[in-house]
């Protein structure tokens, strides 16, 4: 088992929380992990990404090579396009459709989706809406993790255990909302897998 995952978003959107849950689950499964993240200047509202690699064999590089990512998980639609050169031919793109507009000339979301569809068959997730249904718009990133779960090579139960472990200190209610959000994403993803 080896998965190369690129997490994409804008500084402050919480991709490191997604990474932390996957890391926890991968460590729990006894896998090797390398997870490169961005700290410093770019964190201030800039494009950020995390290269996450999990494997049952020894890993060397912290960075994913071009054309070898099994999954691009993006919490922002425009950012899902930025890392396409890393995607493997059989790789998956799971992206939120909620734009984060903080730059001039941000293209219309329809054009972004069109560009994405011309390259891959993406799984599009109305993350914020599903997160609200789960109890808080702030749980969007866990919706995204749920939607991407089938492509991570990790059991959903293990990822949920990771959510419990990471959000546990914030109280039972926060854990519950995030688990609900995760399951909403997962349900959407599974429905998509059976129809496509």
């Amino acid at each position, binding site marked *: 088992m080896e998965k190369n995952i690129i997490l994409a978003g*804008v*500084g402050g959107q919480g991709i490191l929380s997604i990474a932390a849950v996957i*890391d*926890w689950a991968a*460590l*729990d499964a*006894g896998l*090797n*992990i*390398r*997870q*490169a*993240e*961005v*700290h*410093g*200047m*770019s*964190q*201030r*509202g*800039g*494009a950020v990404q995390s*290269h996450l690699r999990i494997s049952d064999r020894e*890993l*060397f*590089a*912290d*960075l*994913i*090579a*071009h*054309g*070898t990512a099994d999954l691009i998980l993006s919490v922002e639609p*425009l*950012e899902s*396009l*930025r890392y*396409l*050169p*890393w*995607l493997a*031919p059989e790789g998956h793109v799971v992206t939120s459709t909620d734009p984060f507009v*903080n*730059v001039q*000339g*941000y*293209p219309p979301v329809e*054009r*972004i989706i069109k*560009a*994405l569809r*011309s*390259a*891959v068959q993406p799984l599009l997730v109305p993350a914020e809406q599903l997160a609200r249904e789960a109890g808080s718009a702030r749980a969007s990133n866990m919706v995204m993790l749920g939607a991407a779960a089938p492509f991570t090579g990790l059991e959903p139960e293990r990822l949920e255990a990771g959510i419990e472990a990471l959000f546990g200190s914030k109280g039972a209610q926060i854990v519950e909302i995030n688990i609900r959000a995760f399951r909403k994403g997962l349900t959407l993803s599974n429905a998509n897998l059976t129809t496509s």
Partner: protein
Amino acid sequence: MNRSRLLLLGAEAVAQGALDAGISGVYAYPGTPSTEITEYIQRSALARESGVRSSWSANEKTAYEAALGMAYAGKRSLVCMKHVGLNVAADAFINSAITGVNGGLVLAVADDPSMHSSQNEQDSRVYGRFAMVPVLEPASQQELYDAMFHAFDLSELVKLPVIVRMTTRLSHSRAGVGRREAVAQNPLHAEYAPERFVLMPHNARVQYRHLLDLQPKIEALSESSFLNRAVEGSGPLGVVAFGIGFNYVMEARRMHGIECRVLKVGQYPPPRRQVDELFAACDEVLVVEEGYPVYEELFRGYFGSPKIRGRMDGALPRDGELTTDLVASALGATPAETTAVPEIVINRPPELCRGCGHRDLFEAINTVMREQVEHHVFSDIGCYTLGALSPFSAIHTCVDMGASITMAKGAADAGLRPAVCVIGDSTFAHSGMTGLLDAVNDRTPITVIIADNDTTAMTGGQCSSASGEKLERICRGLGVEEAHICVITPLRQHLDENIAVLREEIAYDGVSVVIARRECIETAARKKRRATAKGE
């Protein structure tokens, strides 16, 4: 679950390794990508229990000297900084190789190839050669952890400071790390050794000779280091892979089924015998270094060697961080076919936070400077450097810590009016005060705007060495006239009065200081979250 492994950033592996190797203190000034080392120690329960001192220093030079003092007193000390921070600490660092140490002294320095958060990509291994001290460059988080024990032992064995060099990619990447049994701290043991520590010429000459005489021993220690090893292979091409360059070589080798011999080097000076063996066995040698082609240049020699490939002949790019793709291509592999980035993808540069006080300050500065014929604003390193970008485009220089004040002074000396500069509270404490003293002594007409957000914000909100009223006291103490030390609050509702204050102080023909004081919104929010969490 495998609880014995901790999931650590490279920087955190350095911190945990140093704690387990028995340090009594860490000294540092924040700087990406090195900040997390000290932050980890500050959060560590183990560090608290064992009384490891860990608060931030005013700058890298004071940090280094304090670490040297702790090592003088016989204890193990760690000093951390980013690559350009070592320029600030260089005087202390270079001379500490002449004095040597008693307790172990390890300098953990994090370089930033590709300049993710820096103004250059200087390679700290050059400093290692310059000072003639051992340099360790581990390739993984586990190696970083293990190397800390080795670094302190080595430092106490050869009685020299030892550098542990890493780069952004390793510092900011997580992996599982297994711990070993911790070592107890050294007892206090300060020896009188003025012949080593009083660097008057007659002592320094002897000590320098001693440092030169130590070099063969240091090189011999590299031959047996666990950080250096040969990977078996075949074929005419061999690779010398330094630091994390090794990771990309091994990844490319596996991915493309390349069988080449590899010499991994993680301790400097490089192990000469092992390098000789590789060169003897191969027709062509690719030198892979994450940083400058320091050893490639050395291996090539002045007259060059046709069998060496690397950054200097274009096999690898001359600048920037390495990747598996770049190394694979240098090894002759065909690049994978990839999907291009669609044209509609625009850049998303970093920006000042919405609600940040610097935004209001820059708006006021821009209004006042637009009234001037010459509207240069000298600035410095911190979040406010983002004022150089749209929509503000408010600052025109950012060179090194503290240079805003001194460059404004020099420009004023040249006749530029007005000469205005913007510097943060933490940067002012780091290297701004001495420049302000120069301006006061010369009665230079400059206006120093201190953007006081009560924190070192860009690196994540560390304690600033001087903020709040301390800043006024420092400015008064340095001789700035009381009437020309003004405090403003950069908030929208104060815009007009702030403009008036700035206009008046910029018109003043002498040294004036305007302190724009409002807490960083990130730091304020974090404090609030902590208070709420405690209240529950």
